[in-house]
């Protein structure tokens, strides 16, 4: 059933091959060190999620951070690297360059500008690793992710890695791409070789979720509408600002003005979360390992919208959040 799932995922994403990992965090954290070694250079966004950061740490490569979704900053870094390469062409021939981005960022709810990234990729000869944990099953006409959303040929992206824990409601993760690229992970992906496989029930559940996605492609448009609606409704809260794109199902509510210390912010947001919980709306704060994150995002409440929630439920949730926020923050 695991091989079946790999086949189905590869067919769904229209790539040559896919490989399944049994733990979603370990997917991207093993995929990056399988390709990028000491002496290689990785350009990564500042808002990359914790799994990517751990993968980069394990890879022992040179990490160059660029500002979140700032293509000018990335181009500046790539140009600097090009100058270094021209100074030492023999070293440049042996170093590999990678760009690691997320389709829909977990920490900020924004979408990466993929067309410009592909242009930069071909201009500066780097390879793109796209992490589609939130955008798989969300963006695009048929849910194929951010490549379909922008209409980019899937062969332009060297590796797509995603979590099955979000829209496929299973556990684990998968990577898909060309056979040449994915086959390498079967021997050198540490999270693939050195761990057991996914429970077969969950693999079957993922296949069923893929079936649902393939049978009703209309749900993605519905999800988009719901996301836009709730985004609009939550805009008017004083004291909280909505961080994230309007078509992102996972967005953050951050305090408009921080109180100065992170603990106080966290406590304030926790107060809002507790009161919402009392009224029957379950929210959660975005949790981070504060000492381990490279660029710690400000404390926020992460709100996630699913396609199964009805209009009334969404309205009720939005109004509850509004009332609670006004009560707590004023």
């Amino acid at each position: 059933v695991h091989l079946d799932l790999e086949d189905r995922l590869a067919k769904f994403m229209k790539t040559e091959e896919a490989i399944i990992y049994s733990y979603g965090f370990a997917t991207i954290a093993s995929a990056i060190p399988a390709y990028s070694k000491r002496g290689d250079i990785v350009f990564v966004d500042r808002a990359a999620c914790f799994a990517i950061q751990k993968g980069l740490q394990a890879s022992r490569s040179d990490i160059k951070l660029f500002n979140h979704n700032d293509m000018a900053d990335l181009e500046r870094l790539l140009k600097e690297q090009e100058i270094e390469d021209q100074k030492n062409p023999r070293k440049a021939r042996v170093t590999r360059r990678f760009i690691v981005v997320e389709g829909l960022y977990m920490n900020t709810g924004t979408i990466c500008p993929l067309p410009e990234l592909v242009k930069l990729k071909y201009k500066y000869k780097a390879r793109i690793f796209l992490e589609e944990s939130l955008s798989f099953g969300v963006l695009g006409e048929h849910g194929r992710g951010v490549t379909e959303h922008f209409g980019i040929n899937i062969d332009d992206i060297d590796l797509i890695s995603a979590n099955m824990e979000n829209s496929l409601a299973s556990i684990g993760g998968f990577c898909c791409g060309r056979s040449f690229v994915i086959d390498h992970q079967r021997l050198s992906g540490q999270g693939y070789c050195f761990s057991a496989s996914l429970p077969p029930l969950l693999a079957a559940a993922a296949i069923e979720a893929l079936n649902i996605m393939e049978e009703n492609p209309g749900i993605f448009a519905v999800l988009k509408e719901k996301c836009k609606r709730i985004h609009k409704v939550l805009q008017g809260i004083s004291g909280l600002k909505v961080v994230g794109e309007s078509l992102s199902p996972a967005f953050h509510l951050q305090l408009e003005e921080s109180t100065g210390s992170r603990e106080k912010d966290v406590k304030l947001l926790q107060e809002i979360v507790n009161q919402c919980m009392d009224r029957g709306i379950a929210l959660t704060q975005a949790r981070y390992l504060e000492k381990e994150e490279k660029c710690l995002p400000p404390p926020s409440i992460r709100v996630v919208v699913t396609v199964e929630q009805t209009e009334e439920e969404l309205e009720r949730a939005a109004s509850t959040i509004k009332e609670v926020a006004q009560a707590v923050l004023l």
Partner: protein
Amino acid sequence: MGGSSADSAPPIGRVQMGEGGCFLEIAGVEASPAPQAGRASEAGRMNVGVAHSEVNPNTRVMNSRGIWLAYIILVGLLHVVLLSIPFFSIPVVWTLTNVIHNLAMYIFLHTVKGTPFETPDQGKARLLTYWEQMDYGLQFTSSRKFLSISPIVLYLLASFYTTHDAVHFLINTASLLSVLLPKLPQFHGVRLFGINKY
């Protein structure tokens, strides 16, 4: 520091033997296989075809069981093949053996870098030659001494059999120097004029 002390297997072998000795009264049958397993694991560390925790197997090849003998036999084979060519005289054959052996040693030990397989250490040895990778960079291990002495022995034999002729002497000495200098610990990781650096 000898070569055997650099390996991690002997302490494990000794522990196994110690445990076998302790439980001698309780399990008389198990005691006898355990010391033998300990002794066997001390010999060739190169576990071919089994799962091992050696991060870079390249470092242990020259400590494997029987590889020194294989090396000597290979050099002997080269010499016999050269001897069988009819129009080479004995001094020429010896000089050729010396030179070809040193050339092959230079290429395989001091020019080729990295490993032919994926290692789990994220490419630590990617820019190191085989000589620098041997025993993880530990100097004066027994295999290193063996590989340093073998060109010297060949040189001595060659200078004897070429009756210390001047031309042969020059060729043999130059060849010997080219293969002995990179083996010095002062030359560990040194790349002259940036040749072969990346």
